[in-house]
């Protein structure tokens, strides 16, 4: 350490100088940023960005049109921000190609912003009567740490990342800290895993650091199969370099040689952005041999999985990287000792690692000042469903759920009331409207029978039937059971049949007890969370909405009329392996 102690510091300094010059040049010209992650594209962002490019070119303007990730204000997508030199960022929501043409004409050609179309401003400078974003409830309640640059920097652009504080954390670690000190900093921060289990991150890293072996792996879980959650993909699409820096810090702290970012095939945005970021980091000596001139070497690759929800389970994830069926392994041995290819491994969620750069840069104590009791820092929530402002919001732990659902997301649409919250993914739980008074932290959520999980909160209003939603969740869990453990494979099928029967007003008096019995068996007899928690959606729904179930079973009536007799869903779980052509081939007969 002593011989190379100053190398990372000077390597970082030259990196930072170059980056700041680049950023200053970027801000010296009009800058148009268009949100182009999955949400932006679904809202029509492709046409909007094309319109900006065409107009800028046809006017012969010296302006930069940049495609960025999601700022989190998904309700306003396609969201565009236009920054004129010396002015604040001015955000325009729900932009269409026609509005884009108007904005180019007004903002870029004439240099005049359009308060009539603007959503808000961010940053210093004359605002022309446009409200500040910081004064809006959906912005002022947020503390953006892991997602601080999403929607601001061009994904995978190293200069933009470094100019905004990127790689300062890694440089600090490499320049003068021991791996143990980095682990301690994470412990001091109170950081707990954001993938669902909420395990203390510093402790987890120390397990891998203490494991024997020359080859160790850091695995980053971006499988994110939870319907209703898109924050992992949001980070990768918005700011993949934060994840790479965090992963590298983890690699240094644990003595790992290689990291794998595990993403589901088909998520082209996150995959391409991450790969591009890896190329940039390697070019700048931030991945590979002797990072920043230190003695530490580490590399990262993307590993793809096919469509399978269970792939996101830590041992199944390793099976998938090894190229096999993603079915969970029995534990022990635990991954920290026997993981990927039998080597010590550490699996972290994308969000967890995305915090590491800021924790290292500002110190663990700083992070521990944010949050609440044992839940330090922030939660990255995906608020969707029946709310006025669905989006991805990063909020400090300790807010009330009401602050989040009503304050940030604007509550349910006019004329309806919030009835239920579905949190933590399909294996999480359902809460009722009284739960809005709960505090947002790991312990309170777990005690209430829901979990924080991956941060998805789906809001249902009073037009939603709890039984109908349960049918959807159970159908998902049944479809995605990998089939390895029969209590899960058969149990989920039985549960789905029972819930379907109840939705079709064919339920029987003993059905609730029957489901409890199946659920208990699944919990006891399954290797992974999919079976162990597979009864959660039903048990929590019964707990808060037993009246809804009784109404279906006893009165043969759906209180909201949403339980249709026919429920459309995928019709098969796995394709039949021995299709006709397979049977015809020679090797099939031997």
């Amino acid at each position: 350490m002593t011989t190379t102690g100053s190398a990372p510091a000077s390597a970082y300094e030259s990196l930072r100088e170059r980056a700041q010059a680049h950023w200053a040049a970027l801000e010296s010209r009009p800058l148009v940023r268009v949100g182009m992650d999955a949400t932006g594209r679904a809202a029509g962002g492709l046409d909007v960005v094309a319109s900006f490019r065409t107009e800028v070119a046809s006017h012969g303007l010296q302006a930069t049109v940049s495609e960025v990730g999601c700022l989190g204000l998904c309700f306003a997508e396609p969201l565009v921000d236009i920054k004129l030199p010396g002015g604040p960022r001015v955000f325009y929501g729900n932009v269409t190609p026609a509005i884009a043409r108007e904005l180019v004409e007004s903002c870029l050609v004439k240099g005049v912003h359009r308060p009539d179309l603007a959503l808000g401003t961010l940053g210093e400078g004359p605002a022309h009567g446009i409200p500040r974003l910081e004064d809006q409830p959906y912005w002022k309640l947020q503390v953006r740490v892991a997602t601080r640059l999403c929607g601001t920097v061009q994904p995978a652009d190293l200069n933009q990342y470094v100019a905004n504080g990127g790689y300062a954390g890694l440089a600090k670690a490499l320049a003068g800290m021991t791996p143990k000190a980095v682990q301690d900093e994470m412990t001091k921060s109170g950081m707990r895993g954001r993938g669902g289990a909420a395990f203390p991150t510093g402790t987890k890293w120390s397990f891998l650091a203490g494991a024997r072996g020359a080859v160790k792996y850091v695995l980053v879980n971006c499988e994110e199969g939870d319907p209703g959650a898109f924050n992992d993909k949001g980070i990768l699409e918005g700011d993949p370099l934060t994840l790479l820096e965090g992963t590298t810090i983890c690699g240094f702290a644990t003595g790992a040689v290689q990291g794998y970012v595990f993403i589901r095939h088909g998520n082209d945005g996150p995959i391409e952005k991450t790969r591009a970021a890896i190329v940039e980091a390697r070019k700048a000596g931030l991945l590979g041999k002797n990072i920043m001139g230190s003695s530490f070497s580490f590399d990262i690759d993307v590993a793809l999985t096919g469509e399978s929800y269970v792939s996101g389970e830590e041992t199944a994830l390793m099976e998938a990287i090894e190229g096999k069926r993603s079915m969970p392994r029995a534990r022990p041995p635990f991954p920290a000792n026997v993981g990927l290819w039998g080597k010590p491994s550490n699996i972290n969620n994308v969000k967890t690692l995305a915090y590491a750069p800021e924790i290292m840069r500002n110190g663990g104590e700083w992070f521990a000042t944010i949050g609440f009791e044992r839940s330090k820092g922030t939660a990255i929530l995906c608020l969707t469903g029946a709310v006025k402002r669905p989006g991805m919001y990063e909020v400090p732990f300790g807010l009330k759920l009401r602050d989040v659902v009503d304050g940030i997301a604007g509550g349910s649409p006019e004329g309806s009331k919030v009835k239920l919250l579905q949190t933590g993914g399909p294996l999480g739980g359902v809460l009722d409207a009284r739960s809005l008074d709960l505090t947002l932290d790991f312990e309170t959520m777990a005690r209430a029978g829901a979990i924080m999980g991956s941060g998805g909160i789906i809001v249902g209003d009073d037009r939603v039937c709890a039984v109908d939603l349960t049918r959807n969740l159970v159908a998902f869990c049944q479809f995605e059971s990998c089939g390895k453990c029969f209590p899960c494979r058969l149990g989920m099928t039985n549960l789905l049949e029972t819930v379907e029967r109840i939705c079709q007003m064919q339920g029987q008096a003993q059905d609730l007890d029957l489901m409890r019995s199946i659920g208990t068996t699944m919990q006891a007899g399954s290797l992974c969370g999919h079976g162990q928690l597979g009864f959660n959606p039903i048990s929590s729904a019964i707990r808060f909405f037993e009246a809804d179930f009784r109404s279906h079973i006893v009165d043969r009536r759906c209180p909201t009329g949403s339980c249709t007799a026919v429920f459309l869903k995928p019709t098969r779980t796995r394709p039949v392996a021995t299709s006709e052509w397979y049977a015809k081939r020679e090797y099939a007969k031997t």
Partner: protein
Amino acid sequence: MLRERVRKAITSQPQPVVTVLSSLLAVEDEMGYIPPEAVEEVAEHTQSTVNDVWAVASFYTNFRFTSPMERVVEVCWGPTCHLMGAQEVMRCAQELLGMQGEGDTSDGKVTLKYNTCLGACSQAPVVMADHKLVGRCTPERLAALLRAERTGYHAPGAHS
């Protein structure tokens, strides 16, 4: 010809670690499906057996084993989309395409797929038509997406 394409896909994977799954995904990207020849080629290239490869190919639900249709329409049935009206969109898709569930149309032109989550939940209900995401989808918007003048495709159940 077919085998050459498959072999090229398997051998030109960008990442250093090549496995049965990564090879199958590479073939799927190149061909749009897994032909029987690919199972044999992947087995040979990864020093596995045909059964090993089949085990993996039949497990992940993204693989298909017949050549792809001209168009793919994926409708999300995740819980957010469900609450925001996905069932009507799915029903509309089935009707327009003259189908009873997901699968390929009888004229071999369109694949209808139900996706567990397309990752744009804040724009629910979400549809992906030919790899392009469409948010806040209604039965009307879906019908427009499938309409003949855009695609040359006449949906069996479409009246326009």
